[in-house]
Structures are given as C-alpha cells and as structure tokens.
C-alpha cells in the first residue's frame, strides 16, 4: 500500500484523530502526541497493515521550541513502509514507549532519550545507552554545549 492509502485506512479506524500530511517527508504522517501509542498499536496488530518491523526511531531538533520525533515502520509481508511523526515541545518532551510492541524499540528509545532527552513512559529500562550514565545534557540538541568542545577556527 502507498502512504496515501495507509493514511486513508488509519483515518477510517481513527475518525477522531487529526492526521496531517508531512510536507517535508512524503513517507510520514503527522500524529498528535496523545494518539501516537494507539496508532502504533494498530499498525502492529491489524492483520491488513501488519507492520512487523520497526526500522528506527529518531528525532530532529528545531530550536527554539520544536522537536520532531519520527518512527519508521515496515511490513515484510506487504512490503510497505510508513513513518509516524510527532511534533513535541522542546522543554520536557515525553511519549509512550513502544517496547512491548516491537522489541527493538527498547534500545531505539534509549538512544533517543540519551541524545535528545525524550522521556518514554512505560519503557522497561530507560537508561542512557551511548553516553556515560552520569552524563549531563542531550548531545544531539542543536544548542548543546560541553566544556570539552574546542570550537573549530573559521
């Protein structure tokens, strides 16, 4: 199925959810923060969609106040792909975890938590995965600063 068809199907299942097309990313659907979890559950469990593989989860930082979260899903049976995009507040971003639906969401979400500071509710083991455990700050945020950094001379 194409992304437009997948979007149409999801709109039928969730008539109350406001899905938006993403102008920056033709594979993505923008989902409100509150509906991300139930839409993802549908993607996983609906036999007609059957997204059996979570490709990756990541973020894109847009200071001063936008943080875009992205999750890519793929179906090996139907060979279709869809991304869910959630626009988060940059202050204290949080989302429900998908670790019980796709096992690899565990480490993916730890990475997003580690580098962007998104807190995942219901995650079984939300610790830093790349940086040392007592690290402060979220390195992939655009405004991140650290005393070790020596600026490259222009």
């Amino acid at each position, binding site marked *: 199925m194409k992304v437009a068809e997948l979007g149409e199907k999801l709109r039928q299942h969730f008539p109350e959810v406001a899905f938006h097309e993403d102008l920056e990313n033709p594979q993505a659907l923008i989902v409100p923060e509150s509906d991300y979890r139930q839409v993802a559950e549908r993607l996983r469990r609906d036999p007609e969609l059957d997204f059996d593989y979570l490709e990756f989860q990541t973020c894109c930082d847009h200071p001063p106040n936008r943080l875009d979260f992205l999750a890519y899903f793929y179906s090996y049976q139907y060979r279709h792909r869809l991304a869910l995009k959630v626009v988060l507040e940059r202050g204290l971003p949080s989302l429900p975890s998908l670790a019980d639906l796709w096992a690899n969401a565990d480490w993916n979400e730890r990475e997003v938590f580690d580098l962007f500071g998104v807190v995942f509710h219901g995650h079984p083991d939300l610790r830093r995965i*790349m*940086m*040392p455990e007592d690290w402060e700050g979220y390195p992939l945020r655009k405004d*991140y600063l*650290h005393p*070790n*950094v*020596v*600026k*490259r001379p222009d």
Partner: protein
Amino acid sequence: MGIISGLPIEKIPIYLEKVPGGAIMMTGVNSILNEAKASSLWYMLFGLACCAIEMMATGASRYDFDRLGMIFRATPRQTDLMIVAGTLTLKMAPRVKLLYDQMPEPKYVIAMGGCTVYGGPFYHDSYSVLKGVDKIIPVDIHVAGCPPRPESLMNGCIQLQNLIRTERLGHDRDRPGLRHITPRQVPGMPPLNGGLIRPDQIPILR
C-alpha cells in the same frame, strides 16, 4: 670491566667463547635483558576504531609482526605492549585504564594514530572523545597518521625496541615525564577507578 662501564649501554659487546661442547657468552646483564624484552613484545589484541584495521593488516602475513617477535595475546595478563589503535571515547577511557593496570610490568604503550595522539579529526567540535591517551596512561611512542600505514606502525615498534635497548636494570622507569603520570579527569569522563560495569548489578548476568 672499567672500560666497558663507560660505554653507552647498547654498545656493550657480547663476547662469545667457544668451548668443547658449547659456548660461553659474556655480556652486561642489561644487554641480555633488554634484548630479551625488546625481541618478544607481545601486544594486546585490542582495537578501538579504523586504526585497528591497519594494526590487523600489520599483524597479518603481508607485513607480519612476527618478524619483530610480536605476537598478539587476547588477555592483558600476558602482554607487554598495548597498542591503543583508534579513537578513545570518554566512556571507553576508564576501561582502557583498567586494561593497562592489568598488564604486568614491564609494560609499554604505543599511541597509534592522530586520535590517540591529540584527538585527531575529533579535536574540534567533539564532546565525547578523549584528546590524547597520554592523559590517562603513559605513552612511550606516538605514531602519527590517520590511520598510520603498516610501515609507520612497524617503525614505531622498532623505535620502541630501540628505546627498550637503552634501559638500565633498576632504572628503567626513570625516563623523565614518561612513566609517572597522574591520570587526569576530563569533564564528562566516568571515574577512572570505579564506575565500571559490575556484572553482579546487571540482572541478565546475575
């Protein structure tokens, strides 16, 4: 022996006197010990980044570390030489220090490649890389390059062997500024003593 003691250590000759049924060798104790140390440098099988690929190439048959008497060992307890090959991140630094501490004396360190010498391409704009392994362990030889070619690395090892041949018994740790360094704590680096993985605290390993 008065004449010989004035010579530089590496110049002390080895006398060989053939006797029936064998030979008698006479030399300074430094010469024979240094020769033994320099010609069996076992190095730790331990790589961190792309330099490790070059180190493997040097160990393989085309360049062949065995020619220098160098054999890799997979445990720090049996090694004399640590080749720090690759980018050392702050998270990895305490582990490298732990490996170094587990090596028995006499032990030597070669810093291989730009990253281990001064941070290399990660010197600027990087928050997670330790800029120079000599901040945490004493380094005998720095090998430049990104990554150094096998010839460079072998040259570094030969330089180290030459360095070992100048050591004097009981004085081999007194090269100024080399052996005794105080490991420096860099912002963001886990504690050098502690903060390591505790298997008894990891549920899946318990």
